[in-house]
């Protein structure tokens, strides 16, 4: 994974000094509240319902064990001993004190971490597939390009005050999209053209929030070395022409829609023609420089441990289920990708204690070359585990609460912090997730239901990605009371689709029953091979509607 050199270190420390100065001026009144606001947001600092909230950046989800240990220490020393993994693979602290934030940032900088641009109207953390570099169907490892984008976008002088926030995601797998790139402001799909050259298919103007949209393609093939100049052209067009008169119409998707994707693409291409050969154009040496940080770890030459695993799975049904759901195929023989579930019922999705962060660090050191990865589904991946040690790892995960074998099932809920923590929320989301998890606590039934994405957001900012859940739940406020609107048919993968609203919203107490009725319809109508989404696509909304509103 990427390691800072002296330049990165210097910039990180200068950033801490800058924010320390800004915080001091804010506290002594030299900076007015509205002047400090974008400055603190660009350092991930919100003022929330109960306390400030600090969002720490985890670039494209990659973490080293020393970083996890430092995060654990920070949650203990400056917070209440726990943290929350977000859907942008970042980490949030819910109770830091404003005046402590510069010290927290200094502690983060020591381990090559920061909170730059985790909020505000600027370019946010670039995300990618948590299985990058270890799956066998990727066009190339996307992480060097994510790091290239991270550096280009960090303190970019022209794009620090965009009309609205701006999110970029990169995907490299040909078969799956675990980064949901089509619902990002820019989604980059790595591809090879007919000549075999590496490049990107460029989607622009996807997004969730108030006006959910799947991002159209504005360029089928962008050569890899042109990545940054093309991004700069897109951002410049957006910075100049994106709407600034109405916050709800300020995302790039509104501009793309207004100009049409073709019209928007023309403007970008015209701008790009001027700058494509500028010094911002990448060089093969630069790409190679970043690639050297993402080489393979010291894998041993192993055979697949098929016989051993088969025996262990046969002998232990719980282990068998865990392997089926939480373990994925690795490109190297003898290795496996393990996902630690942070979706144990009774624990807010994505929440971890200080001790758990340290346990993840220990497990990463022991089983996965000292690295762990955050996923946008709010779980944690150990990407390089030996197959012959899976059983041993599983036995360690169980008492720690990480072995819930529910990945991609109904109870692997994506969920924002909601009204319990977030000042923007219209409704709570964590209790809804928990009530549904309790209702569906029979693992066999969950496995029978198969793959279902249930996503919950406490407001239309859609941090819980409800629009792209097969079942999406949105908290709404009706005359001071919390209600929940359901949408069906959303999909965040290669065939990205925005879900359709089922009908009038429900009270919180009704939610487990409502979900159960939706599931009943699926169970009754499905054919043998169909997932929930397949059945919905075949039979449409009406049967679900009839059952729920009968």
């Amino acid at each position: 994974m990427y390691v800072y050199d002296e330049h990165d270190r210097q910039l990180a420390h200068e950033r801490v000094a800058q924010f320390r100065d800004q915080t001091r001026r804010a506290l002594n009144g030299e900076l007015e509240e509205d002047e400090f606001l974008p400055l603190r947001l660009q350092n991930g600092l919100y003022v929330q319902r109960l306390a400030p909230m600090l969002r720490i950046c985890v670039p494209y989800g990659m973490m080293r064990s020393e970083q996890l240990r430092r995060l654990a220490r920070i949650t203990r020393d400056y917070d209440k001993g726990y943290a929350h993994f977000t859907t942008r693979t970042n980490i949030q602290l819910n109770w830091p004190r404003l005046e402590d934030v510069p010290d927290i940032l200094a502690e983060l900088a020591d381990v090559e971490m920061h909170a730059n641009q985790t909020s505000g109207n600027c370019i946010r953390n670039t995300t990618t597939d948590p299985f990058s570099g270890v799956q066998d169907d990727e066009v190339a490892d996307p992480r060097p390009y994510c790091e290239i984008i991270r550096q280009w976008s960090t303190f970019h002088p022209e794009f620090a005050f965009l009309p609205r926030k701006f999110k970029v995601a990169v995907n490299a797998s040909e078969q799956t999209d675990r980064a949901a790139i089509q619902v990002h402001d820019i989604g980059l799909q790595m591809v090879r053209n007919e000549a075999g050259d590496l490049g990107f298919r460029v989607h622009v103007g996807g997004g969730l929030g108030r006006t959910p949209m799947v991002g159209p393609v504005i360029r089928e093939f962008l050569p890899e070395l042109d990545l940054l100049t093309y991004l700069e052209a897109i951002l410049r067009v957006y910075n100049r022409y994106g709407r600034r008169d109405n916050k709800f119409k300020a995302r790039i998707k509104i501009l793309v829609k207004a100009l049409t994707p073709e019209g928007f693409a023309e403007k970008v291409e015209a701008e790009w023609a001027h700058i494509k050969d500028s010094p911002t154009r990448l060089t093969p040496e630069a790409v190679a420089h970043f690639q050297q940080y993402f080489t393979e770890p010291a894998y041993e030459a192993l055979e697949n441990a098929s016989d051993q695993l088969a025996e262990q799975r046969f002998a232990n049904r719980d282990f068998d289920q865990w392997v089926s759901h939480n373990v994925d195929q690795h490109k190297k023989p003898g290795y496996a990708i393990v996902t630690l579930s942070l979706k144990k019922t009774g624990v807010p999705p994505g929440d971890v204690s200080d001790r758990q962060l340290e346990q993840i660090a220990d497990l990463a050191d022991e089983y996965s070359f000292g690295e762990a990865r955050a996923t946008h589904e709010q779980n944690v991946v150990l990407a390089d585990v030996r197959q012959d040690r899976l059983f041993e790892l599983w036995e360690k995960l169980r008492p720690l609460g990480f072995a819930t074998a529910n990945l991609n099932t109904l109870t692997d809920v994506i969920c924002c912090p909601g009204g319990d923590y977030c000042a923007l929320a219209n409704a709570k989301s964590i209790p809804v997730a928990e009530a549904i998890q309790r209702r569906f606590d029979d693992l066999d039934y969950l496995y029978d239901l198969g793959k279902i994405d249930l996503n919950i957001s406490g407001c239309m900012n859609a941090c819980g990605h409800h629009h792209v859940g097969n079942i999406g739940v949105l908290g709404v406020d009706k005359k001071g009371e919390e209600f929940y609107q359901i949408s069906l048919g959303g999909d965040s993968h290669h065939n990205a689709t925005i879900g359709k609203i089922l009908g009038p919203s429900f009270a919180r107490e009704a939610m487990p029953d409502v979900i159960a009725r939706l599931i009943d319809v699926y169970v009754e109508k499905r054919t043998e091979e169909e997932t929930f989404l397949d059945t919905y696509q075949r039979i449409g909304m009406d049967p679900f509607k009839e059952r729920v509103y009968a």
Partner: protein
Amino acid sequence: MPNVISADGTIRQDNWTVVARPEDGESLDLPNEPCLIPVDLWLAGHEHFAGRNDIGVWFDSHQEPEDLGERANELPVVAVNFPKFSDGRGYSIARLLRERYGYRNELRAIGDVLLDQLQFMKRCGFDAYALRPDKDATKGQDCLNFFSQSYQAATDTDLPLFRRRAS
């Protein structure tokens, strides 16, 4: 007279006045001192204003640098207005004037110009900053130099960090 900070952080006062856009039906009233007039009016009255070294122009944040283009170099001063410091369009206007149209004379930030944006402005080609009068101009120097280097190329450097690393 407002404090004007230079790119090196020194503070000066000068007598360039920003002339507001006249109301509909009103004519442009020029003061007896160097002044900056709306860029579209300068373009419309080009034959009248050309060659005067006491008249510059200002862009509002929605205006297009393309309209002035390479004629920018006929002007002693071009200003870009930040109606609100969080309106980032002025940064793009500045880079286009400098990098695309080769503007070489003074490029001044006016309007809601605060301390914490100065280094971004400098990197985008501004070399004079009419700081909002309630802000402390003596802090300008520090705020212009929070960072000793940068990741990207911009108006101030042709060498993004990835090119410096490779050399």
